[in-house]
């Protein structure tokens, strides 16, 4: 069976793939079209129930909820991409270094990773916000920092496995140096594990951004964000309770899609990594 055939038959991967494709398509769509402007206020039409004109109604400032949700997806994806990018750039480099050098370098990198884990994304965001003021940039960096030890650990573990294989010994015998082996043999062989982890961390980043924006530490007005929509929706709970439901559903479907896709990829890319079912 080809990879595509296996992928289509894998239930989690197929469902997750569809949800993720929808998320990406929505974000791309937001660049060219939203039913109404997501930032334009229309106070006379505030808190409208769902109707033909406004499919999911309007919020407390008269903005169209569908438009806000579509525009908010862009925000979630951007934060996810940058935060995972930071995690991969620094985490993979540190993990590869630890596996290649072993000894005290490895010990130092791993202790550093342990240490960073004591500062979950929210705590680092709080610390950074206290110093530099709230904003999406600070929030994204905080989530990214949290991703670094996650990728460093998984890279080191996977890379150590590759270093003990015979083909690496053969490459050494051919006279290849440590860094050439790392780039030409180790990295390609751990790519599958990294892709799986990247998918999962993307989901974690979306959740973290939503929480930070809900608390006012992330995306600032008027940029639409699902987390902030939830915060505003909670304030309007007695007038229009659906406002506190839609953004949550958008988050759940995105995160569910990414997690299912990650699980599926784990099975498809590396059967040894697959969890026992």
């Amino acid at each position, binding site marked *: 069976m080809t990879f595509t055939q296996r992928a289509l038959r894998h239930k989690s991967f197929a469902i997750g793939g569809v949800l993720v494709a929808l998320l990406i398509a929505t974000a791309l769509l937001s660049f060219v079209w939203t039913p109404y402007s997501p930032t334009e206020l229309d106070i006379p039409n505030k808190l409208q129930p769902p109707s033909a004109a406004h499919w999911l109604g309007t919020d407390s400032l008269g903005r169209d909820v569908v438009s806000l949700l579509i525009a908010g997806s862009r925000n979630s994806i951007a934060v996810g991409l940058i935060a995972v990018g930071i995690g991969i750039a620094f985490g993979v480099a540190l993990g590869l270094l630890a596996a290649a050098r072993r000894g005290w370098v490895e010990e130092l990198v791993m202790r550093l990773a342990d240490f960073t884990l004591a500062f979950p994304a929210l705590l680092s965001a709080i610390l950074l916000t206290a110093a530099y003021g709230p904003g999406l940039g600070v929030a994204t960096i905080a989530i990214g920092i949290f991703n670094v030890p996650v990728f460093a650990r998984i890279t080191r573990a996977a890379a150590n496995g590759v270093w003990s294989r015979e083909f690496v010994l053969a490459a050494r015998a051919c006279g290849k140096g440590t860094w050439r082996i790392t780039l030409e043999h180790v990295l390609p062989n751990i790519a599958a594990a990294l892709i799986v982890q990247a998918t999962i961390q993307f989901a974690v980043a979306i959740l973290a951004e939503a929480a930070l924006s809900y608390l006012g530490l992330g995306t600032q007005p008027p940029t639409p964000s699902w987390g902030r929509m939830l915060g505003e929706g909670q304030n309007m709970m007695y007038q229009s309770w659906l406002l506190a439901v839609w953004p949550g559903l958008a*988050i759940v479907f995105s995160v569910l899609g990414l997690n299912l896709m990650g699980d599926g990829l784990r099975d498809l890319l590396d059967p040894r990594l697959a969890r026992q079912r």
Partner: protein
Amino acid sequence: MILAMGIFLIKRFATFVATLLAASVLVFAVQGALPGNAAQVMLGESATPEVVAALSRKLGLDQPAVVRYGHWVRGLLTGDLGTSVSYDVPVAQLIGERLAVTAPLALLAMALTTVLALTLGIYAASRHNKLGDVGVMTLSQIGIAIPNFWFAILLILVFAVKLQWFSAGGFPGWDESAWAALKALILPAVALAVVQAAILARITRSAVLDVLREDFVRTARAKGLNRRQVLWRHVLRNAFVPVLTVMGLQFASLLTGTVVVENVFSLPGLGRLIFQAISNRDILVVQSVVMLLAAAVIVINFVVDMLYAVIDPRLKVHSA
């Protein structure tokens, strides 16, 4: 063997102390990295230079960083954390009051998580690949994707706004009636626990399934014990090791989750304190609470590591 264990304990303890120290340096350094003088940041742009200079002296900002750090660490160890600028009470007292909300909430949430997760996980494993298992796994997959603060909002919608069984937020305090106080913590604890339990239930299930495949389980069955007896006498004890580790790791996300959920329910705990402190630019409070939370995570992970070594001696050699 005993020597190896001793060396492991000493090494692990040294790492623990070093981690705590590093965390304190980091938390302290962020204050030092503040753009401009911390006193200026606390007082805002409009403060006159004389007022800023006075506060700087009061906070000891005119001293070198090393001296201030030493002072701060000594304060952390002795409980003298200075006085909050916005509340005008000792920071230690402020934290103590808020802990009376946060600590019971975290404990209640952890207890609920454990009960829910172990029940569901063991049930799913015992019904492996049958309808019950698939149902629990599907539910947990959805549970993992739900942001805890959104779940909290949904709970308020259903149980406070629609059914009016609970209040939508706030905390009456422990002095009036313990039941009223506990009642105010139930919805927040459920919101925290459901999401955590979704993760832990999956871990429990796969841990139990792993142990069920071991030889000694077959031996126990051959000895004449039935499935239920084997599960309770042999499997659960062995499956507990990975479950415990994940519970330790979950404690960090539980604490940060508490910070968020306290804000959803307007509970006067550490989470709410930290946000009020940020908007009041009360840096001493932010610093102390962040340090406290980070230290809690480090301590819990240390304790779990120790327990891990005690429960499963095979692991000592690897981790040492």
